[in-house]
């Protein structure tokens, strides 16, 4: 290696001495930029330009690219008084809340359970709980639309039998505005709890086992060990899962769209922000207004993520 380096250096020196030094220096200066340029160009064309274009679009009333009228912040002011947008924000927030406060504890519970040595066929159960995530949201939407059928659906049949007819066969999970959100949350728990469980499992394996022994020696019970050893040990994972689950919840689209037959469901009880954006932009063709919805969503997600990161102290630890 040292011989090669010496040869290379000597050649470079020869080059400089021979008058080609400026050329080589230029080459070395430009080379990194040239190597980066394909990505930069693609990112500018397909990333930055659409982002900036959507920002300007959000200031226009549009009917395709040919008809644009500058409206300043009118789209935004209309948005904040738009009852459908309020409904979408509320629904999305409720879904995100339950995703975080129901789904993540379930995922953590599963991870804790499946990290116990006494559980038989742990690998099988891990795969079984993770496997719903291998299916796409569209497939899950179609599947659960059938399962939630009144009268003939498996969910109602099962619940009716389990509760000795207290839950009627005619329960309309997808047609009753009060039941749409529980149906959505249950479906997403089925789909994502196993996925988040994998993160927690990985986090749990990284917790130093000696700490449990030490805590045990100090007389800590299982709950205290969980609170004082496990939780601090997997805090980075908790922060990561919390942030990604929240962001994912705010981007919810395919599942309710399919489950509720391409709409927001009764009284828009399943309308999410992204569904509303899609509806305004691609069904109604109002790209300007859809852009305003998109930017408001992006800003909201940024604020929520910053709050979460701050509350969990992730940035401090990062430093």
């Amino acid at each position, binding site marked *: 290696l040292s011989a090669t380096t010496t040869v290379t250096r000597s050649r470079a020196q020869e080059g400089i001495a021979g008058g080609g030094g400026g050329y080589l220096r230029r*080459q070395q200066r430009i*080379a990194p930029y*040239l*190597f980066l340029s394909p990505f930069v160009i693609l990112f500018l064309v397909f990333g930055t330009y659409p982002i900036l274009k959507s920002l300007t679009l959000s200031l226009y*009333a*549009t*009917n*395709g*690219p*040919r*008809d644009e*009228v500058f409206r300043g912040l*009118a789209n935004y002011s*209309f948005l904040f008084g738009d*009852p*459908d947008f309020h409904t979408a924000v509320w629904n999305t927030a409720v879904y995100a809340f339950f995703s975080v406060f129901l789904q993540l504890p379930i995922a953590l519970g599963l991870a804790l359970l499946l990290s116990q040595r006494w559980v038989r066929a742990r690998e099988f159960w891990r795969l079984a709980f993770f496997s719903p995530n291998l299916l796409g949201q569209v497939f899950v939407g179609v599947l659960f*639309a*059938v399962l*939630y*059928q*009144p*009268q*003939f659906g498996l969910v109602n049949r099962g619940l009716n039998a389990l509760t000795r007819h207290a839950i*009627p*066969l*005619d329960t*309309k*999970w*997808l*047609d*009753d*505005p009060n039941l749409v959100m529980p149906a959505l949350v249950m479906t997403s728990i089925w789909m994502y709890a196993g996925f988040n469980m994998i993160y927690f499992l990985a986090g749990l394996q990284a917790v130093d086992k000696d700490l449990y022994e030490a805590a045990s020696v100090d007389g800590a019970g299982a709950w205290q060990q969980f609170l004082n050893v496990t939780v601090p040990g997997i805090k980075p994972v908790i922060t990561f899962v919390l942030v990604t689950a929240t962001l994912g919840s705010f981007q919810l689209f395919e599942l309710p769209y399919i489950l509720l*037959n*391409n*709409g*927001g469901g*009764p*009284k*828009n009880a399943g309308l999410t922000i992204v569904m509303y954006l899609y*509806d305004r932009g*691609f*069904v*109604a*063709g*109002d*790209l300007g*207004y859809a852009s305003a919805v998109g930017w408001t969503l992006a800003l909201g997600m940024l604020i929520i993520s910053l709050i979460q990161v701050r509350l969990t102290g992730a940035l401090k630890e990062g430093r």
Partner: protein
Amino acid sequence: LHRDVASASVAGKVFLNVRSFPFGVAALSMLVLALASGALLALRPPEHKKADITYWTFAKPHYEAYQKVIHKFEEEHHCKVDLELVSGQGLPQRLQAAFLADLDVPDMCEVEISSAGTFFRGPVEHIGFTDLTPRLKAEGLLDRMVASRFAPYTSRGHIFGLPHDVHPVQFGYRRDILEAAGVDVNKIETWDDFIAVGKKITIPDKRYMIEMSATGSSQLETCLFQRDGGYFDPTGNVIFDNDIAVETMKWYVPLVAPGSQSQIANTLSSSFGTVIAQGMEQGYFVGVMMPDWRSKIFESDIGHLTGKMALMPLPAVQKGGRRTSTWGGTMLGITKHCKNQDLAWELAKFFYTNEKDLAERFSLTNILPPLKAAWKQPIFNQPNPYWSDQKLGRLYADLAPEVPSQYTHPFINVAKSKFGEALTECVQYYSQHGDEGFEPFIRTTLKAKADEVRRQIGRNPY
């Protein structure tokens, strides 16, 4: 040895040359790869379809029927037609995007009635479809077809679509169940008669006289159209909060509200597929609103009910009143992108006005064509064993002239969604309070929902 040394020397020179390439071997490799793949693409360009007309349809039965006959048109006009079956849910968005970007726009396209209005947004001159009014007038098609079917495809006096169908609605029912219950459907003339029978037939949670939704507006709007109501008037004003809509809602809600004394209707979460098939098979529903297109779905999805099903005209609102309504529809539009408008028009006429082909297509789809002359074809008088040997085509054709107009608008989907919301709220109110204050509640709710649509329309200059 000498030869080996010589070849090594050549290889070394090549290697040195490669190394002396600006920015080294890596850059050279990338350049070679880029050039090679570019050359490959250039030498093997994607196959361009050399069709004279590109035709999109979302309905598989249409597509299959057109495929059977398209060769005749191609031979006659010495041209090539590219028929494409596009997903029904994807077509409006794909077409919208094609119009916006002016890329991959088909020459002709069939569009479903619920999304047709969204293409009529903006100044008339910017609408992506060709105004067919002059051609329709010249060919006399406005008189030869059911006039009301042009209404949904008309915007500001310009007709942008040729109607594919009429879609009259009847009541399709389990003949065996009603006969076993001693019901003579010939005596059912009005909705009052129907409701009286329905109350006898309905057993809560076990059997309902008719499938009608308490949250979705499909059946409610069919009832609204029957009474000459609608979402918009011909000039585009929102009207689903007028007296007709209030009366329709007041009449409809008690029929579907859970726990209501008058409940004779219920719904499962879908009106299609295995769900409704099970509902009909098990007698959970005695009948459903049956537009012509749905009758074929029943024939194929619930085949073993052959001979047990029958049709009757919808009950009228008042004695002697209209015995039908309408549900669904499709238009054929020629896009402005089409370079050969005359050829496209000929193809439109070939598909939509050829009486024998229309008759053939009716046998495949049960869909009644709007061309009145076609109804004289023998197939329309043929008894259909599935429907207890009733003359299905004749039954629908007799009702076709009565089919009400429905007017569309770029904001039609918003209006439908708001009307559906109003229905849900009215059902909730009725379930809790009954008739007490019901009408004022309906009025307030419909007004609020209609105002939301007006606000949306008023916000946008297009």
